[in-house]
């Protein structure tokens, strides 16, 4: 898991008056789960469309290390793509659609049928294989769409907003499934805005805002780089002093009620020293610590600028 399979160098994409992607750089290593995160309109889908060759960058370069050699986009049977704008042939039987997609991705008819049947069984849709897609619930259609993406065992799966439309139970199944694909050696690019789900899955994360990189790295490195430490909630038996003394390693403090304080710790704070100091303020009844979530990190990274939500139009693609 050390080779870079995809390298993105300063790509830029402009739609009419909106810059959807602005000098974006990142690399993805083979076999990892890489998450592209950001709010709606951050430029995720525009980036994905350039990565898979549906559009081209106005400037910059994409280098994909295909088995046959370097390519300017991830294309062909090595790609499995679950688009954000998704749908399947509603008036056709489930199995027929999967076999068709399998054929287009290079499988023989027999292989496509066999694999589709296995996947349908596995996702509890085996008995509905001959039904028309339109007869399935939205969640089940989403499962079929996911099967169509990975049916041919692609080397690189691009999953754009894969969690939307799934209930919590199926979200969990989906997380397990993606982990399984990684274990089989598949490289996965996730584009999503559900940060709580992605932080449980991703090996590397790129936070995007207004078409640009806000932060990038592993979850741990993001926590470290953000400068956000653990949040500590302390409940005293009695009311602590109204004027708190200076506490080493505490960046910020907030009084939640008469007996409870919430402290934001620096990433290099010494917890033992801090606990000693807190005991000096009064008897501690309860403690609860919370590491910064991706959500916290993202909001911190974006800072006063705030996440952009005015670029939805830019995500509407024109070829």
């Amino acid at each position, binding site marked *: 898991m050390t080779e870079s399979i995809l390298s993105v160098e300063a790509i830029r994409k402009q739609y009419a008056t909106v810059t959807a992607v602005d000098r974006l750089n990142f690399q993805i290593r083979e076999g990892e789960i890489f998450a592209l995160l950001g709010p709606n309109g951050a430029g995720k889908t525009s980036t994905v469309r350039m990565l898979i060759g549906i559009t081209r960058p106005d400037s910059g370069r994409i280098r994909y290390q295909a088995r046959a050699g370097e390519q300017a986009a991830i*294309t062909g*049977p090595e*790609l499995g*793509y679950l688009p954000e704008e998704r749908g*399947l*042939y509603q008036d056709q039987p489930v199995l027929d659609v999967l076999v068709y997609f399998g054929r287009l991705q290079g499988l023989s008819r027999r292989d496509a049928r066999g694999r589709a049947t296995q996947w349908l069984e596995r996702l509890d849709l085996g008995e509905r294989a001959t039904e028309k897609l339109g007869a399935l619930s939205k969640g089940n259609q989403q499962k079929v769409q996911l099967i169509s993406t990975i049916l041919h065992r692609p080397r690189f799966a691009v999953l754009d907003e894969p969690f939307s439309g799934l209930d919590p139970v199926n979200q969990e199944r989906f997380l397990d499934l993606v982990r399984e694909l990684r274990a089989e050696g598949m490289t996965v690019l996730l584009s999503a805005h559900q940060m709580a789900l992605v932080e449980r899955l991703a090996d590397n994360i790129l936070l995007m805002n207004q078409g640009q990189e806000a932060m990038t790295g592993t979850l741990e490195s993001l926590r470290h780089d953000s400068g956000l430490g653990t949040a500590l909630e302390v409940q005293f038996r009695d009311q602590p002093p109204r004027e708190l003394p200076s506490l080493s390693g505490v960046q910020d403090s907030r009084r939640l009620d008469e007996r409870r304080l919430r402290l934001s710790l620096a990433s290099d704070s010494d917890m033992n020293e801090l606990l000693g100091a807190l005991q000096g303020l009064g008897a501690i009844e309860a403690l609860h610590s919370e590491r910064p979530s991706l959500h916290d990190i993202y909001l911190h990274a974006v800072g006063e600028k705030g996440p952009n939500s005015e670029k939805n139009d830019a995500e509407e693609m024109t*070829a």
Partner: protein
Amino acid sequence: MNRGNGPVLSVARWEFMRYFKWRQELIALLVMGVIIGLVYGGVWLMDRYQSGQQFKVAVIGGEHLALPAGELDRFYFQNAEADARDTLAESVAAGTLDGLLILHSNSNAVLLAAREARWQESLDQILNQLARQQALMDAGLSVAEYEALSRPLALRIDTGQAGEAVGSRIFALVVLGLMLLAVFNSFAYYFASITTEKQQRVCEQMLAMIRPQTWVDGKILGLTVLGLKSLLNVALWGLVGLLAYRIVSGSLPDLSAWLPPLGSAFWILGFALLGLLFWNSILAAIAATIDDPNSSSRSSLMLLPILPLVLVFTGLDMPDSPFMVFMSWFPPTSWAAMPARHVMAGVDPLALAASLVLLAAAVWWVRRAAGRIFATGILMYGKEPGWGQMLRALWRREG
């Protein structure tokens, strides 16, 4: 991207099977079979019933035609006096007598009957035959003399094409008409196919698997075959019509007179098939740019393929005029104009071949252009590419 013909054939098969349903086809064939069976069976039963039946007809004034009393063909004629008219009319109304024939002269007769029936046509023929014989006798002419007098002049038009012209003309008209039908059928399928894919948001995942050119090639191939298949249905119904005609008239038209020589058939079919592919490619591109067929002004472009046929029909009287010669080389019209010139005036085989090659090259270019326009329009939701965008797409290097 996938290369080779595999994905094109997969798309073509898919597009064909999306609209070709075995069950519906079998039901249609079954219905057709039932209709044929009913028509055949009904007429057979009717004939069988009527052939064993004798119709009793009373005749007043039979002497005007020398109508003999007694059996003649399927009739039994019974002479009667004029004062028995009312009684006999009551018998007709009661059904004990099939008819009462009142002859006022050898050219004026009335038949009283309870209802109209097919046997009355046979009676009409018999009476007319007797009346002609009577007239010939009155004029002192024999039947042979009469036929010699009434025979028309047979003018045969010899264009040096040894009798093939009529067959070729009919064949060409039928083929071109059917091809136009196939174009319209295919266009309906393009509309349904492409707008459904847009509405169901299938396009982006498809384009991640195959190139737009591959997709449009498969569509053109699959839906063209589907259009041709619909012609097969038309042909089958035509056959049913011929059978019905045979049953009604008792004879079949001479179909061999409609068939052209093998060489002409080759040229006509070749131009028709390439013309079908040419227009289907254009229609595929147009359909990809239409967001909503109900409101798009581009829907009217589906009438474009009629234009060549209209132009060709206006020039049929002057097949070698500069206008027709130009149209027979210009690919959008050559598929109709060149076969028309060929059957009307004869065209040098080398010119036929050159025009066909030019049309084939145009099909190739239009197919590529369709791929580029398709790529421009297929991912547009809620809007349509402008004419400028489409023109720029035409000259883009990649589809």
